[in-house]
């Protein structure tokens, strides 16, 4: 365990150090503007004159003001600590005060995003498994459907996202849950389809022949051989699929003027010039993705162990 943990920790702390180091040059102009407004003498004077000078020169000529860039209220690039503070302030702290589901808390917005993600994941998985069964059992389906499934993933779904929202609005569907779920299902079905086609074809010729000697019909062959054999493939694709579903939901929230959900927090943070809200929502989305994939990994371990397929 530690043999794998140590390198990961080293890489993570390296990235963190890189981020922390970048805050200085990214924020120095803002920090100097602020210092000048407070009457501190800075070199060179005037924001326009500073435009001509590179960030590193500014840092070298105003070493006393660099620290100010690490404590700005609306920084271009917040420090890791600031992001963690904002994340805690909008989740744990609000929950401790019993306002975990207020509209200002990321728990509420994460919940909205999670609902659409799970709905899209369920829809996408169902479509993917259904498509895979049809492709495995019908040669016509395989020849007509498979190329289009591949083409569908080369179409940038974001181009369609505003259309899907408008269409479902015109069709009289209330709320934004369903259109977002459709977008995430669109991204999620493909890995499941490909994985299940592989999985359902995993049984060997001998195994299929053995079933025939038992006089097993098509349904029994599917339930007792093909479906169990496909489980490892299914779970591997489900882990890819749920991450894709989360991406789909956030993409569905971004360009469409949604007001709740993690993607909407990013949008609102952008419109109100509040970068901290964007960063906090981004990290909340990352944590959500990590939790979902880890949970599925746990289910995978349990199911495969019960089926005697654990590696």
């Amino acid at each position, binding site marked *: 365990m530690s043999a794998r943990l140590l390198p990961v920790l080293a890489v993570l702390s390296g990235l963190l150090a890189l981020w922390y180091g970048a805050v200085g040059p990214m924020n120095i102009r803002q920090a100097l503007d602020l210092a000048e407004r407070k009457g501190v003498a800075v070199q060179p004077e005037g924001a326009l004159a500073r435009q001509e000078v590179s960030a590193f020169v500014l840092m070298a000529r105003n070493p006393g003001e660099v620290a100010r860039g690490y404590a700005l209220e609306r920084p271009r690039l917040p420090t890791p600590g600031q992001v963690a503070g904002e994340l805690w302030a909008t989740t744990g702290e609000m929950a401790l005060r019993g306002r975990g589901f207020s509209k200002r808390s990321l728990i509420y917005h994460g919940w909205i995003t999670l609902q659409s993600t799970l709905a899209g994941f369920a829809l996408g998985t169902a479509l993917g498994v259904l498509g895979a069964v049809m492709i495995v059992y019908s040669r016509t389906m395989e020849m007509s459907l498979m190329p289009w499934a591949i083409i569908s993933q080369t179409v940038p779904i974001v181009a369609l996202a505003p259309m899907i929202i408008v269409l479902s609005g015109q069709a009289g569907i209330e709320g934004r849950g369903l259109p977002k779920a459709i977008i995430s299902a669109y991204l999620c079905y493909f890995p499941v389809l490909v994985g299940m086609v592989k999985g359902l074809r995993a049984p060997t010729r001998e195994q299929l022949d053995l079933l025939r000697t038992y006089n097993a019909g098509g349904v029994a062959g599917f339930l007792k051989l093909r479906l169990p054999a496909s489980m490892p493939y299914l779970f591997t694709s489900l882990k890819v699929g749920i991450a894709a579903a989360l991406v789909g939901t956030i993409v569905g929230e971004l*360009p469409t003027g949604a007001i709740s959900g993690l993607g909407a927090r990013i949008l609102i943070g952008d419109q109100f010039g509040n970068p901290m809200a964007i960063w906090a929502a981004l990290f909340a989305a990352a944590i959500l993705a990590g939790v979902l994939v880890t949970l599925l990994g746990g289910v995978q371990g349990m199911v495969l162990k019960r089926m005697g397929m654990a590696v």
Partner: protein
Amino acid sequence: MSVFGLALLFWLAAWAVNAALARSRWRDASGVRVVVPVLFGAAILGLWEGAVRGFGVSPVILPAPSSVAARFAGETGLLWEDFLQTVLKGALSGYAIGCGAAFLVAVLIDRSRFLTRGLLPVGNFVAALPIVGIAPILVSWFGFDWQSKAAVVVVMVFFPVLVNTVQGLAEASAMQKDLMRTYAASYLQTLLKLRLPAAMPFVFNGLKIATTLALIGAIVAEYFGSPTRGMGFRISTGVGRLDIELVWAEIAVAALTGSAVFGLVSLVERWVTFWHPSQRS
């Protein structure tokens, strides 16, 4: 109503032809492999056209494919301008920079086993994250023009290509590396003659994933601010003005571009990795 019935009939006929072709003895001929999906797609388009005309669906909700095609033909100048801005300037430059940087970093990191072991799980995790969300931040850093779109694309394609390249570089077996050592091959020779060629199927897998991501990144970034041209800009303003036919024409451009670039990368892949079992069937 009768128009829709006609479309339904066309769909059934197309399906029957496809089923017959799939069962015939020419089913593995390359011509048939193209005709069947094309017929399937045409049948779907026919069904769409028939449904829109037969049920009198308002063009504000869903325009017929034929009217979208007419709009497409009438607006080629505008569509080309948007294509130039979004695909050639934003997506393509970002794709080249992002994939190139990821490839170089992967080759450098590969020299250290410690870094490789640490970076693979982190990179795999980051590659699964909704990185598109970073678009508003990068637009505020790099301004409204194509540079910010390229930056979003760079961040989005970097990790999938990095992870795939690192995995590919581990692909050469111990036996093959031993053989290179008996030839007294240097690190660089082993890299160029054995490990990079062996990594190519993985690299191309990453490059293929990155093509779609690049288009998604370039289009989403335009939703957060762009000059008055570009596919994302046209789509978001088109939806606002209920100019739905133009939006579908832009979607068609995006779809054609995505498929064409994917096809191009696959073609190069076939040419580079002709020796791989998946390319020899």
